[in-house]
């Protein structure tokens, strides 16, 4: 427990709540109110960034469940997102309504995730990471070559989502849809971490031998972790496909997997809050850099190309700097900031 000062619990149920204090509940309500109202004030570009953030949050939170909470390094998350995208697109084009189609995408990704999670029975650490890297590359190859299913190089066009006749066309409507799904997923993962499977995952991460001795069946729980995390990755993929309305194999490469990993590491491994922070940070970073490069470019016009081209280098540099100076991520930094304000003026 984080030991909040001033909270007095009279029941286990109250102690176990996700948001124990009233202040937290108020802040959360205010946050959701702001989210609900902001499309009125923001233009399409900002909304599109928020949409991308929402999709990244779902993917990051699911990867955090697998890598941060259960300790299974996975470099294949981008491909699982892709599987979900293709499966959802095909399901919707075959006639299923949007929500069952999305769940179909999630289920397909879960199956694929569990198949590629089978090596986790025998492999740990770096070997598992390399096995998932192989999974990523093999799935990429399949996306490009399984013409009958994925349309190969031509890709798949996806109609915009439609629930009960209401079409979610355009950034504003997709914003509400994506935020709703992201909230549900985040809440689901937080709840999962409070239940028996969640505690089993943490036990496996901390020291798998002790977990096995205590009675946690390593293999089934690891597979479950892969399954649940890939299911949510599939949901993120389905939303992505419906948002961009056109899926091609190039969208789900190794760069995406690395990006998701960067999100959870910069955010803080093992905490849902960290995954959300990381997703927001990594999605905003290229945009901030573009704006900065554009600004610097108008001051030094000859160097404009160079500034624009340094984006990826700066992404790498940010990652390295975070790992060196803030290895526990943004969540840790946030906790320190909150502690500072709470203890003011007695902060250390």
């Amino acid at each position: 427990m984080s030991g909040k000062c001033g909270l007095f619990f009279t029941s286990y149920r109250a102690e176990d709540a996700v948001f124990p204090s009233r202040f937290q509940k108020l802040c959360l309500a205010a946050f959701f109110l702001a989210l609900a109202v902001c499309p009125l004030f923001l233009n399409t570009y900002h909304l599109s960034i928020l949409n991308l953030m929402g999709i990244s949050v779902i993917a990051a939170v699911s990867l955090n469940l697998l890598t941060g909470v259960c300790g299974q390094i996975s470099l294949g998350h981008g491909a699982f997102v892709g599987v979900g995208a293709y499966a959802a697109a095909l399901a919707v084009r075959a006639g299923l309504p949007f929500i069952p189609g999305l769940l179909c995408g999630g289920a397909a990704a879960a199956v694929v995730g569990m198949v590629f999670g089978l090596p986790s029975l025998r492999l740990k650490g770096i070997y598992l990471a390399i096995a998932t890297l192989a999974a990523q590359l093999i799935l990429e190859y399949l996306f490009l070559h399984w013409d009958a299913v994925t349309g190969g190089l031509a890709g798949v066009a996806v109609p915009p989502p439609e629930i009960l006749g209401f079409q979610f066309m355009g950034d504003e409507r997709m914003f509400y849809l994506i935020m709703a799904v992201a909230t549900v997923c985040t809440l689901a993962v937080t709840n999962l971490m409070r239940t028996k499977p969640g505690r089993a995952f943490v036990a496996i991460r901390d020291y798998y031998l002790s977990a096995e001795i205590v009675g946690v069946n390593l293999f089934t729980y690891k597979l479950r972790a892969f399954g649940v995390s890939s299911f949510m990755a599939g949901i993120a993929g389905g939303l992505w496909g419906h948002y961009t309305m056109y899926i091609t194999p190039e969208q789900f490469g190794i760069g995406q997997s690395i990006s998701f990993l960067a999100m959870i590491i910069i955010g803080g491994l093992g905490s849902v809050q960290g995954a959300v922070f990381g997703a927001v940070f990594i999605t905003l970073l290229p945009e901030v850099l573009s704006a900065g490069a554009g600004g610097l470019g108008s001051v030094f016009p000859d160097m404009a190309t160079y500034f624009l081209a340094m984006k990826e280098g700066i992404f790498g540099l940010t990652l390295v700097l975070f790992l060196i100076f803030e290895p526990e991520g943004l969540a840790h930094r946030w906790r320190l900031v909150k502690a500072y304000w709470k203890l003011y003026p007695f902060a250390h």
Partner: protein
Amino acid sequence: MEYYLQLVINGLVVGSIYSLVALGFVIIYKATKVVNFAQGELVMVGAYICFSLTVQAQLPFVVSFLMTLGFSVVLGMLIERLVLRPLIGESIISVIMVTIGLSSVLKSLVQVFWGTQIQVYPQVLPSDPVFIMGLPVAPVYIAAFILSLVLFLIFSAFFKFSSIGIAMRATAFDQCAAASMGIGIKNIFALSWCIAAVVSSIGGVILGNINGINSQLGHLGLKVFPAVILGGLDSLLGAALGGLVIGVLENVCEGLAKDLFGLGGFREVAAFVILVVILMVKPYGFFGTKEIERV
């Protein structure tokens, strides 16, 4: 039949490039247990430095080659000191991500200093092909094969017989025990990165001679994983042989996939399918040390 023999020879020849890169990878892992995702970029940086000294500064090739090796030593030390040392003791995923970040930074630096154009390398080896069993082989590949053999022999001897080499193996095995025996852990790490950077530069110069250099050379780093897993992450012999085997297997699988399944372009993913199979059957590779877990 001759056709298949030629495929095998061609595979061996291309695989020697993989071996060169894999050697650098294994040296780092053997000494520090760090999996270096930036190996391809180290190769690329070595190639670019030699290019700029030879072509842009117009120095004779031997001089610029030796200076490149010097630069690589400095680069290895810088990387170890600035990036890896703060992460001693961190979880393996942090180390993996830091090397991934490092690869992006190196690539970006190369682009800033040398642009994104493909650059042509000075041809130091004769370009007339040598005929092996009827298959014309470019001398550059022969050089790569000989170099990887030579480097492998040098480093095997180094790790087996020299005291520093044994110290490096001890550090990789158990850092605390090695430190308590008086081995300077930090110096060992720095040395291993320097050696790996030097080996990568040599590989980069060879690679540049094959098809010029551009800022996308780093992708070779990914190709190396099947080779090192096949051979064993901490085995030099495994790296050398693994590279050759992967080169041959790529050709064979490509041919098989085409004839049996009609699949095109399978060679790119063939190595990774083999990787998965090896991981399931023999996760520590053919020559790697098995990690025995004791409770």
